[in-house]
């Protein structure tokens, strides 16, 4: 029980660190020095000390948006296993709860964006929902394929080491699932090639534009929520390769954290070498994820 609580707290503490790693990787590729690794922590603490300003046209939905999103993501992080060790809360079918908690977070971000009445935020909200309509089914189908493969329908069960054990029998399918979840991971965390987290050009941005009107504490919640979400979806990817291998809890956890940092480096490399797609091409990119996950699911049906 103690280790479960420690894992939960580790997720909450470590997740902003990964963004620092991504920024450092991108800076390395661009030949810059880059911001400090702990920059996101500084930003969050700076914002937490500030007050929030609310427009007169907004209602309680605007205030509730960041709070609900952050709490949904934090609850979801209690469901996600840590390097194959069971999560704080786990029960059969928690996959569905996990995906819908992320869906709830998105829904409230979108509602808060629409609540401001700004046309730019409306555009961002529309794009977010459009892309989510492709990303969510492929995440569902990928997890369904893994569930079918491992015979377990809870996240802790799937990633306990069952995926590792089925590599030998089902390698190609797991690669397909990995590809699908990686595309969803990039899209959901608004990374290049779907969205560029650095641009502040309203015409092309997706996630950033929805949170333009949030400030102070609310914006800190949003930044922190995005960081935790990055960790959650990243866990799905890393756990396919790293499981509990009975080297002792401490070593497994250390290996897993290095795995997550490695994933952040990969994301940094992807962002450095790829340009973002044209907005019209993004659904096509996400449909590739959908196709991969459907194929993987079919491969498990024999």
């Amino acid at each position, binding site marked *: 029980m103690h280790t479960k609580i420690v894992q939960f707290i580790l997720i909450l503490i470590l997740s902003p660190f990964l963004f620092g790693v991504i920024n450092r990787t991108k800076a390395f590729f661009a030949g810059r020095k880059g911001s400090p690794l702990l920059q996101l922590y500084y930003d969050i603490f700076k914002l937490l000390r500030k007050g929030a300003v609310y427009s007169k046209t907004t209602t309680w939905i605007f205030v509730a948006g960041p709070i609900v999103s952050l709490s949904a993501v934090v609850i979801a992080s209690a469901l996600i296993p840590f390097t194959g060790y069971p999560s704080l809360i786990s029960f059969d079918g928690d996959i569905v709860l996990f995906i819908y908690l992320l869906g709830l977070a998105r829904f409230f971000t979108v509602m808060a964006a629409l609540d401001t009445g700004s046309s730019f935020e409306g555009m961002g909200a529309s794009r977010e929902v459009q892309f989510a309509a492709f990303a969510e089914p492929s995440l569902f189908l990928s997890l369904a394929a893994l569930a079918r493969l491992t015979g377990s329908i809870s996240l802790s069960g799937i990633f306990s080491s069952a995926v590792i054990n089925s590599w030998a029998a089902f*390698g*190609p399918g797991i690669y397909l699932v990995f590809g699908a979840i990686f595309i969803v991971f990039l899209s959901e965390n608004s990374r290049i090639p779907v969205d560029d987290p650095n641009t502040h050009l309203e015409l092309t941005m997706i996630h950033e534009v929805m949170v333009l009107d949030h400030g102070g504490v609310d914006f800190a919640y949003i930044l922190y929520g995005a960081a935790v979400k990055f960790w959650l979806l990243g866990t799905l990817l890393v756990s396919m390769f790293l499981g509990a291998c009975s080297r002792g809890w401490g070593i497994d956890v250390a290996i897993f954290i290095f795995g997550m940092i490695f994933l952040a480096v990969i994301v940094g490399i992807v962002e450095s070498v790829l340009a973002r797609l044209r907005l019209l091409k993004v659904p096509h990119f996400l449909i590739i994820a959908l*196709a991969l996950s459907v*194929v993987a699911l079919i491969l498990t049906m*024999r």
Partner: protein
Amino acid sequence: MEMPIDFVIVTVLLMNLMMLSSSRIRTCIQIAAVQGILVGFMPVIIDIHSILPGIIIISFFSIILKGMIFPGLLFRALREANIRKEVEPLGGYPLSLLMGVLMFALSFWLTSRLEYAQPLISYLAAPVSFATFFTGALIIVSRMKAITQVIGYLVLENGIFLFGAVFLGAQSFLVELAILLDIFVAVFVMGIAIFHISREFDHIDTHKLSELKDLITKK
């Protein structure tokens, strides 16, 4: 389940999907060529313990033909007709990609109803080879340029070859040789035909060929 065979078969399937979603004809030809080479290796991979000289010969010829000669002919036709991009297919690329996945599901269901005379080498081989026929057929039906339709024939042949290699063993190779020869002639003739069509009409869009009559009457 044998791992290398499954990896090759799943790669063949992914290449079908790549071809369905790619807009560049050059990429399509390259993918079809690599698919042909992969499929050409199948008979050797399957019977790795007891390779007959006949199998090596057929494998060798099909790899040379599908991996080098056909792409060469098609690239020449591409150069002479001076085209780069395929026009948007019927229904668009995302839809044709989803159709590809749907056809894979359909072929999975179809092949699960077949009864096999001998134990299967890989449970994926039959569905993927059916899906490859269907992909070839879909490319022939939905694409506008004559040259992409030729690529569709090549994909169809890859499917037949995969099916034959996995299920029929050595007996299939007579049939296979005949089909290969047919496809060779077809690609050859189509290469010449495409050249002539593009010289006469400045394009090779097949849906515009029905306007042939009007052109003559205008003259």
